[in-house]
């Protein structure tokens, strides 16, 4: 008797798979419809918090990076390019060292103090449970520095 070795491939969506598995559960429990027990929200949070992102930690990392790069300096147009790149790169490497499963976006704005106003706003379309953002404002006598960090979950 010849055996069919190849399993037939089935085109289906993941939602259909979930539906079918639920129906199979019903069949195996004597045809009564059982709600598939869902993990409670706080239990899920405990599971997720092991890898979730701590904004306070990120804030302290960012503040330290800014201080190290432009701590005691006055605004200098020739150096500002280097400063912003250095701040951003340093922040990114420190954040990566935390070892979390996140993609990062770090932006930095350095502005000279002349009395002008600066406003920044962010709008994000993402998973509000897992993804976070944080903004750090820092100032010295001659300039303002605003650094935003966005952490987007991968898994």
């Amino acid at each position: 008797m010849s055996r069919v070795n190849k399993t037939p491939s089935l085109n289906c969506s993941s939602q259909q798979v979930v539906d079918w598995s639920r129906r199979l559960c019903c069949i195996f429990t004597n045809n009564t419809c059982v709600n598939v027990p869902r993990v409670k929200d706080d239990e899920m949070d405990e599971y997720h918090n092991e890898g979730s992102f701590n904004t306070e930690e990120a804030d302290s990392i960012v503040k330290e990076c800014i201080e190290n790069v432009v701590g005691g300096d006055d605004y200098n147009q020739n150096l500002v390019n280097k400063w912003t790149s250095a701040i951003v790169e340093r922040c990114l490497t420190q954040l990566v060292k935390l070892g979390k499963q996140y993609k990062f976006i770090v932006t930095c704005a350095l502005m000279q103090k002349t009395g002008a106003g600066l406003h920044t706003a962010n709008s994000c379309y993402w998973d509000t449970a897992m993804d976070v953002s944080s903004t750090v404002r820092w100032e010295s006598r001659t300039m303002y520095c605003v650094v935003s960090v966005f952490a987007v979950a991968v898994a």
Partner: protein
Amino acid sequence: MEGSDSYLIRPNYQHKFKPAVVKECIRETVKARLSEVQYDPDEVSELTRTLADSVKNKVKKLGFDRYKFVVQVTIGEQRGQGVKMSSRCLWDADTDNYAEDVFMNFVLCGGRVWKLFLLSSREYECGGG
């Protein structure tokens, strides 16, 4: 599982993020909002927020499924000061990208460096919970 759409971890070429299209979208939105506007310290913070939201909503309608967006809008007053903005990202260079545009006005430097970072989301892989 050949031919199963629900287990995609990379977008198809057609569904990949197109920076040029998004840049045009941003440009139109901002031009419409900021063309005749003067810098008013009381109103500008609200203006920045609503601008970020409207850009985000417009980009959502462009139909990039399976992507998350981050939109950033910066508005500053033109007073002859120096400003420098930079950013770095840790992402998957194959699927993720950004688009930005700058708008300048006589008094209002809608230095709107708005960055749209799209990252592919893997929620479908989780099999519906």
